[in-house]
């Protein structure tokens, strides 16, 4: 039961480098908040400031309404899962999980009960006597989670916990983390650079870039209404097609007219690969954008295929269901309907 409140949090390193340039996020109780962004965007620094592992240069961080700027990580009542798990190599799984409780002076039988209970939930019961080096990557990951859960802290902090696992295990663990977080109802902050992980896990998605928050919202809201070209190109795979406009937004970069009612100040038009379609020469709904395109590459994924095309002086990706019949070199007509179009101004902001 805890909220996490960041107010204008900044991190300036000794050399004058500003890693986080004023971030305000209010995370409600029991929510899973995912910080996502490219490497170097300050998301990990922000997490470490919440943990108390990095000092906050200015602004405030409150957990459960209490300002924690000056409080060490131990007293903040948080638990953290690290990227490389950071298990104590010389301790058995049991002791790894019990260590934090012992340091807090929890009675022995209470520790035993809680460790066994958590081990049961995470299916670690048969591994309690092993040492970390005798475990597989996935098992280590579970132990790291168990170490966090067993303390029943106010807040969980995850620092790219799945990035060392193979793709299949990552998908599996993603679901498990989500379910666990739901059932435990502990407020969590999760850092990742993987937009798929971010989309599937988050109750609240925070997209960061260059030390600033680009957008905060529910994952699907962020997906459907990206606040900037950065968010548009970061969330979604493959990313949104963005085409520059010239001449007050009346024509594409290659000079061809858009034939659209472009909003004022729009300099970029965007549409998602999955919203575009390859149309025959027939009629298209009013307001749609129609682009003559040349196929450059075809990526069959199985259930769908991606056509990489050159169009309107740029390059775009179009998703088609099933197997693509198009071949590289084919000329097509790509259509995206009016409601699927996104417009961005000079500063990259959504219109």
């Amino acid at each position, binding site marked *: 039961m805890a909220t996490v409140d960041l107010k204008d949090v900044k991190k300036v390193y000794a050399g004058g480098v500003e890693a986080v340039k004023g971030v305000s996020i209010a995370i409600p109780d029991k929510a899973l908040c995912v910080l996502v962004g490219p490497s170097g965007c300050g998301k990990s620094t922000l997490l470490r400031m919440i*943990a108390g*592992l990095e000092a906050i240069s200015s602004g405030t961080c409150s957990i459960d309404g209490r300002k924690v700027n000056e409080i*060490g*990580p*131990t007293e903040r009542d*948080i*638990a*953290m899962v*690290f*990227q*490389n*798990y*950071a*298990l*104590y*190599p*010389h301790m058995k799984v049991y002791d790894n999980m019990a*260590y*934090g409780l012992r*340091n*807090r002076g929890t009675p022995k039988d209470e520790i035993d009960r809680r460790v066994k209970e958590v081990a049961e939930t995470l299916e670690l019961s048969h591994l309690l006597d092993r040492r970390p*080096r005798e475990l597989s990557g996935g098992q280590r990951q579970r132990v790291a989670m168990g*170490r966090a859960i067993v303390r029943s802290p106010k807040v969980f902090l995850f620092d790219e916990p799945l990035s060392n696992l193979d793709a299949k295990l990552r998908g599996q663990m993603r679901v498990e983390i989500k379910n666990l977080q739901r059932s435990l109802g502990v407020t969590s902050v999760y850092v990742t650079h993987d937009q798929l992980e971010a989309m599937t896990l988050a109750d609240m998605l925070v997209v960061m870039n260059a030390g600033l928050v680009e957008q905060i919202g529910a994952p699907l809201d962020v997906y459907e209404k990206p606040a900037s070209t950065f968010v548009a190109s970061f969330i979604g795979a493959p990313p949104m097609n963005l085409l520059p406009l010239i001449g007050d937004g009346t024509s594409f970069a290659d000079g061809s007219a858009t034939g659209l009612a472009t909003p004022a100040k729009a300099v970029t038009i965007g549409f998602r690969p999955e919203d575009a379609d390859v149309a025959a020469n027939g009629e298209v709904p009013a307001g749609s954008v129609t682009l003559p395109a040349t196929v450059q590459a075809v990526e069959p994924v199985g259930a769908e295929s991606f056509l990489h095309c050159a169009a309107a002086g740029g390059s775009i990706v179009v998703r088609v269901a099933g197997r693509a019949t198009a071949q590289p070199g084919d000329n097509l007509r790509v259509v995206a309907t009016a409601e699927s179009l996104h417009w961005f101004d000079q500063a990259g902001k959504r219109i």
Partner: protein
Amino acid sequence: MADRKAPASGHDKLMIGQSATGIYIAHAVLILGILVVAFPIYYTFVASTHTLQTILRPPLPLLPGGKFFANYTEALFGGVGRIGGVGVGTLLFNTTVMALGIAIGKIAISILSAYAIVFFRFPLRMTFFWLIFITLMLPVEVRILPTYKVMVDFGLIDTYAGLILPLIASATATLLFRQFFMTIPGELVEAARVDGAGPWRFFFDILLPLSRTNIAALFVILFIYGWTQYLWPLLVTNRNDMNTIVIALKKMVSFADADTQWHLVMVTAMFAIVPPILVVVLMQRWFVRGLVESEK
């Protein structure tokens, strides 16, 4: 491959390109090496089991004589006349105290200073590091006179503290621990902090257990270093009952007035050799692991 020579019988784990002749030569060299190293020790043992008369009348037999118990009992409990009636037992005790004191003291001091230098940020941290580093260039012999003066002023002549203290700081061991501590991932330190471990808890619960192979390897090296100290114990001890075994051995041989009691010298030499050998043999496994393996 069909034309490859079949391995010599019984040696199915030959290294690539190794022939049976090569193996014989390798073994011959190894056996020769063992003989060269072990024979003097064996001969010392043989001499320690004969009477003085037998030793003084060459040639010395190659097989042990019948005076084992007599000689060893005399040396241990009778008090060896040459060094003021002090028994080898006392010498062994003195040397053990000194060697253990030096080894344990060096490890304790260097692990703590390395801990401070690696894991804490304090003013002049690098200055202190370099100060420690520079002492590597000052061997005991260079600073032996001022050190002696200090010991005299403190009244530490003929005490265990006087034997141990001046040799207890070690830049080498500090550097060794520093290098090891720097390989410990930052995440582990942070995990411990989140888990509520303060500096002492972290040191005792995590750092010390992780360093145990390094400590063991260092202990072996430092114990032998302490055991074989000669110059400093010679200076700082005057009383016969504070002598270390190495000093006593030298005193026994150079006594000019009478015949050297070679049989007792040999017994004392055996006693001087055995403890370091025991330490190496008993800690061999740890010693090798500490030198070659870094904990994953």
